[in-house]
C-alpha cells in the first residue's frame, strides 16, 4: 500500500512494477486459488533474477515450482503442494526430499486464517482445526490457547503480512480499484495483509465501469502500488470469462519438471527467451489463444438507482 494517497500514476509496465517493489529477501504472496494465478509477474521475477524470496501461497503450484527451479526461493510457506488435477509438484518435492528447501507448512484453513488476521490488523486468530493432526509437532507457530468463555482448547496462528502481495484480476481502473469474479480465493486477504501490492489485470477500464457496481470491487485502489495491464497474465492458469486453463501445459509440466535439463530449456525459451509478457503471448500463438477462449455467459445486471 502507498504510504499516502498521492496521485502519482500507478499504471506502469511489468518490468517497472517488479523492479520497484520486489527485492531480494522479500516475503511475497502471489495469490490465486487455481484461478487468476499471476504467472506474468512470476516470470518477470525470474527474469530479473530476484533471490532469497520467502514464497507464500496456499497452493505453491506450477508458478512456485518454476520460481524454485529458477533459484528465486529461500523458503516456502504453504498448505498444499501439487500440480492441481495432474499430480505432484516435482521441483518442490525433489528439493524438499533433498533437504534443500525450507518449508513452513499449514492446513488450508490455517494459512487462510493467518492471512485473515493479517488483513484485519490482528496479530493472531483462533480456529478449531489442526488439532489432532501432526502438523503442530513440526511447526511451532501453531499454538493452542483456551477459549476465555468455554475453556475449550483452540488452535491459534499468527498473522501473515507479506512484504509484497501480487494479484491478477479481470479488470481495474487506473487507481487499482479491482473487479474480480469467479473463484475469489485469498486475493482480498492478501491485498489487505500485504505492505505493498502489485495488481495485474486483463483490462484497465474506466473508473465509471468500477463505479457502476461497487459491490463487485474486491480491492480498493488505495491499497494498490502498481497497476499493470497484462492480458493473459494468468496463463497457463485461467481468467474466468476470458480464457480457460491451458491444461495441456499443466500435463506437460509434469514431464518437464522431472528433468532439470528440460526445465532449464523451458525457462530459457519461455521466460528468459522473451523480453516481456507480450512476447510470451506472441510465442503462445493464435491457435492456442483460440483454443482457450470460452463462449460468453453474462451476469444479469442489478439496479443501484439514482438518488437525487
Amino acid at each position, binding site marked *: 500500500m502507498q504510504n499516502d494517497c498521492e496521485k502519482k500514476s500507478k499504471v506502469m509496465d511489468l518490468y517497472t512494477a517488479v523492479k520497484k517493489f520486489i527485492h531480494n529477501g522479500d516475503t511475497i504472496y502471489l495469490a490465486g486459488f487455481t484461478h487468476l494465478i499471476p504467472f506474468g509477474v512470476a516470470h518477470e521475477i525470474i527474469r530479473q533474477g530476484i533471490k532469497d524470496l520467502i514464497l507464500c501461497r496456499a497452493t505453491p503450484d506450477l508458478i512456485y515450482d518454476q520460481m524454485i527451479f529458477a533459484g528465486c526461493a529461500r523458503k516456502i510457506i504453504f498448505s498444499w503442494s501439487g500440480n492441481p488435477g495432474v499430480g505432484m509438484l516435482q521441483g518442490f518435492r525433489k528439493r524438499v526430499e533433498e533437504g534443500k528447501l525450507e518449508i513452513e507448512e499449514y492446513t488450508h484453513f490455517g494459512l487462510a486464517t493467518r492471512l485473515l488476521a493479517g488483513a484485519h490488523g*490482528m496479530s493472531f486468530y483462533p480456529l478449531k482445526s489442526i488439532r489432532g493432526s501432526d502438523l503442530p509437532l513440526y511447526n511451532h507457530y501453531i499454538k493452542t490457547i483456551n477459549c476465555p468463555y468455554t475453556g475449550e482448547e483452540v488452535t491459534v496462528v499468527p498473522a501473515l503480512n507479506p512484504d509484497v502481495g501480487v494479484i491478477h484480476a479481470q479488470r481495474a481502473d487506473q487507481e487499482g480499484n479491482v473487479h474480480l469474479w469467479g473463484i475469489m480465493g485469498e486475493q482480498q486477504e492478501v491485498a489487505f495483509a500485504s505492505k505493498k501490492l502489485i495488481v495485474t489485470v486483463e483490462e484497465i477500464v474506466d473508473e465509471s465501469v468500477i*463505479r457502476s457496481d461497487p*459491490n463487485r*470491487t474486491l480491492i480498493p485502489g488505495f491499497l494498490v502500488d502498481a497497476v499493470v495491464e497484462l492480458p493473459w497474465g494468468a496463463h497457463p492458469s485461467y481468467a474466468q470469462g476470458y480464457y480457460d486453463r491451458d491444461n495441456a501445459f499443466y500435463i506437460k509440466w509434469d514431464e518437464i519438471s522431472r528433468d532439470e535439463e528440460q526445465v532449464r530449456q523451458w525457462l530459457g525459451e519461455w521466460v528468459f527467451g522473451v523480453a516481456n509478457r507480450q512476447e510470451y503471448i506472441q510465442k503462445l500463438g493464435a491457435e492456442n489463444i483460440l483454443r482457450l477462449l470460452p463462449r460468453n455467459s453474462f451476469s444479469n445486471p442489478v439496479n*443501484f438507482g439514482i*438518488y437525487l
Partner: protein
Amino acid sequence: MSYTSAETMIAVAARSLPNHARIFVGIGLPNLAANLARKLYTPDNILIYEAGVIGAEPLRLPISIGDPCLVTGSLAVCSFHNIFANYLQRGLIDVGFLGGAQIDRYGNINTTVVGDYRNPKVRLGGSGGGCEIAIFAKKIITIIPHDLRHFPAKVDFITSPGFVGGRQNRTALKLPGGGPEKVITNLGVLEFDADGEMILTHVHPGVTVEKVRENTGWDLNVASEVKETDPPTPEELRVMREELDPDGVYLGRRKSKTA
C-alpha cells in the same frame, strides 16, 4: 459577508485536513467539512463511511450514514465487519472525524450516557463506531459545540478514548491510533500538549480567550500565543450554502443532525 459560528467551525475543520488522505467521515458536520475540503483543498482524499462505503460521490446531501446516494457510483462497498477490521483496525484510516455529547481535557468523548450508566439521566446513542475510530485512526479531529455541558471536567462515560488520563496512559494501553489531534468548536481550536491535555491555540474572529475559558469545565490551558482563525471565505460560504447544504439542514436553518 455575514456568517454563523457553525460555518466558521466547518470552514476551519475543512482547512485542518491533510490532502491525499483516507478520511473516516461521520454524517452531519464532519461530512460537510470533509466534502467542503474535498471541493476546495483536498481533492485527492478518499472519504470512507461507517456503513461500508468507500469513495462515495453522492448526488445529494446524504440524510443518514447509510444513505443510498452514498452507494450509487461509489468505488467500493464492504460489509459492516470489514469496515472496522480491514480499514480501521488494519490502520488504513488517516483521519477520523468525531462529534460527541461531552469531551474532557484528555480528549475522551462520551456519547453513551449523561449521569450514571446504570441509572442514567439521559441515555445517548452509545459508541456505534466511535470507539473504533478513536482507537484506530492515525489522528482524531473532533467537532463539538463549546459550552459547559459539552466540556465537563470529567466525562460521565468514556465511549471513545482520547488520551484517557494523559498521553502516557494511551501509550500504556497500546491503542494503535495516534489519538486526538484537534478539537474544533464554535469558539476556537484546541490542540493537545505533551501530556495529552487540551490547550487553546486559536480563537475564532471576535471570540476572547476569556469566553472560551468560561465555557470550559476545567482550568483550560492556553497557548502562550493564541492566534485568530481566518473567517470563512466567500468561496467556502458559497460551497457550503449552495452546493453542500442548500436546504440548511446542518447549518442552522434546521436542528442539526446526528447519526
